[in-house]
C-alpha cells in the first residue's frame, strides 16, 4: 500500500476530494439560503413573524435565555433524559434478546405480544404512564424507553438467529455451552447490527422524551415547545425545535463516529 500513487489514482483522489468539498459547500449554502429567505420574507411581511417567527427572533430569544442560564437547564434536562433512556434501551434490549435466544420456548410464547407492543403507538401510553408513575422524569424516561425498546429487541433477536449455525456448531464442538455461544459468537458478530440499532434508538428515544415532556414536565425542550405554543410565543417554540434538530444531529454523529471506529478496528 506504500507504493507511490499513479497519476490516474492521484487524479481520482483529487476529484473525490473536490466532490466532497462541493457537497459540503452546497449543504452550507442551502442552510444560508433557507434561513436567509425565512428572515427576508418575515421582515417584508410576506410571512407573519408572529406565527412563523424568524431566525433573528429565535437567536434573540436564545440569547435572552442564556442570560439567566435557563436554556442550558432545559437542554440539559432533555439531554439527560434521552441519554438515560437510550442506555436503558441499549442494555435492556441486548439482555432481552439474549434471554429470548436462550429460551426459544419463551420467544415463541412472547412473539405476538412483542409484535403488538412494537406496533402500538407509544404516545397512547403516555397518559396512562402519567397516572401510574406521576408527572415526573420517571414517566418521561419510561415513555422514551417504550418507544424504542420493543423494536430493538426484535431486531437483535432476529440478528442472533441469522448468525451462521455452523459458527454456533463450532463453539459446541469445542465444548462450549450457550453462554460461550452468546459471548463468543452472537454478540461479537452482531456488533455492527447493535451499533446501527443504536443510531435508530437514540432518535426514537429523543422522540419519546419529547412526547413525555409535552405531557409531564416543567422543564426540557419538549416542555418549552408546549409552553411556548400555549402562551403563543412562537419564537420560543421554533427555537426549541431548532435546538432539538441540533441535538438529534449531534447524537447521530456521535454514534456514527463510534461506528467508524469499530469498523476500522475490525478491519484490523
Amino acid at each position, binding site marked *: 500500500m506504500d507504493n507511490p500513487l499513479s497519476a490516474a489514482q492521484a487524479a481520482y483522489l483529487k476529484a473525490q476530494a473536490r466532490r466532497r468539498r462541493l457537497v459540503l459547500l452546497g449543504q452550507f449554502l442551502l442552510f444560508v439560503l433557507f434561513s436567509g429567505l425565512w428572515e427576508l420574507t418575515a421582515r417584508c411581511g410576506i410571512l407573519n413573524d408572529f406565527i412563523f417567527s424568524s431566525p433573528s427572533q429565535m437567536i434573540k430569544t436564545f440569547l435572552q435565555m442564556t442570560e439567566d442560564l435557563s436554556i442550558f437547564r432545559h437542554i440539559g434536562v432533555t439531554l439527560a433524559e434521552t441519554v438515560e433512556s437510550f442506555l436503558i434501551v441499549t442494555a435492556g434490549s441486548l439482555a432481552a434478546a439474549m434471554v429470548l435466544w436462550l429460551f426459544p420456548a419463551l420467544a415463541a410464547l412472547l412473539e405476538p405480544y412483542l409484535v403488538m407492543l412494537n406496533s402500538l403507538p407509544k404516545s397512547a401510553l403516555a397518559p396512562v404512564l402519567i397516572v401510574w408513575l406521576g408527572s415526573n422524569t420517571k414517566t418521561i424516561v419510561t415513555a422514551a424507553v417504550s418507544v424504542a425498546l420493543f423494536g430493538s429487541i426484535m431486531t437483535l433477536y432476529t440478528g442472533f438467529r441469522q448468525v*451462521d449455525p*455452523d*459458527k454456533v*456448531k*463450532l*463453539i*459446541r*464442538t*469445542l*465444548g*462450549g455451552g450457550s453462554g*460461550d455461544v452468546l459471548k*463468543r*459468537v452472537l454478540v*461479537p*458478530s452482531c*456488533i455492527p447490527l447493535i451499533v446501527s440499532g443504536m443510531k435508530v434508538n437514540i432518535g426514537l428515544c429523543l422522540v419519546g422524551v419529547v412526547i413525555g415532556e409535552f405531557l409531564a414536565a416543567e422543564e426540557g425542550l419538549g416542555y418549552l415547545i408546549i409552553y411556548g405554543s400555549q402562551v403563543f410565543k412562537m419564537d420560543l417554540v421554533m427555537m426549541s425545535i431548532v435546538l432539538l434538530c441540533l441535538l438529534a444531529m449531534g447524537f447521530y454523529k456521535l454514534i456514527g463516529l463510534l461506528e467508524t471506529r469499530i469498523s476500522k478496528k*475490525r*478491519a*484490523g
Partner: protein
Amino acid sequence: MEPILELIHVSFSYHSEKGETAALSDISLSVAPGEFIAVVGPSGCGKTTLLSLISGLMAPESGQIRLLGRPIGSSGANIGYMLQRDHLFEWRTVYDNVLLGLEIRHRKNDRALARVDSMLDTYGLSEFKKAPPAALSGGMRQRAALIRTLALEPDILLLDEPFSALDYQTRLEVGDDIGSIIRREGRTALLVTHDLAEAITLADRIVILSARPATVQRILTPVFEDSCDTPLKRRSSPLFSGYFEEIWKELKANG
C-alpha cells in the same frame, strides 16, 4: 488393540411435520487408534449426521456409540471436529482464533500455549499470529482451523469435508498438508467426503455408505507401494485408478 471408536448398530432418523426421514440404518464400525478412516457415499446419505452423532451433538435413536470403550458422554474422550468451512472469526486475530477452544475449556495453561506456539511455528503461521484471518490464504486458514482443533489434543478428529470449500489446486495442497499433519501428530481421524480421490489418497480404510438410509455397503483397504507415502504421490500411483473405479462401481451399483 482396543478400538478408540465403536459404532454398534447405530440408526438415526430426522423428524419433521412432513414426515420421517431415515438417515442412518444399522451402522457398525470400529476405528483403531492412529487409523485414518474415510467415509464416502452419495450426497445427502447422512455422512454429516454420522459425525454429529459421534461428536455427541445429537443422540442416536438406537444402537450405541462407544469412545475409548465407554459410551459417549461418560467416556471423557476428547473429540475434535473440523467443519466444512474454517469459521475463523474475523473479530479475533489468528492467534486468538487458534486459542478459542482452550479459552472455552479454561485450559490456557503454559503447556498448551507452548504446544500451540510450536504448531504455529511448524506449520508456517507464527508470523501471522497478530494478523486478522483475512490476511491468510485459503490453505493457511484451514491449517489455522486444524491447529485450533488440535490444540485441545483430541483423541479422535472428525473431518467434515474440510477441503470442499477450497479451489481445486489449493484443495490438493491442503489435503496433502492436513493429511500429513494429522499423521505426523499421530492422530486418529474420521474424514467424511464425497471426493473419492481424496478418500483413496488419505485413508487407511474407506467406508462406502449406501444411499439414504445409509448402511455400510463395503469397507475397502487401499494398499499402495511404500514409495507412495504422501497423498500427492498416491494420486500418481498406477494402483490409484483401480481403487477409484472399484469405489465408483460400488456407488453406482446402489444408485
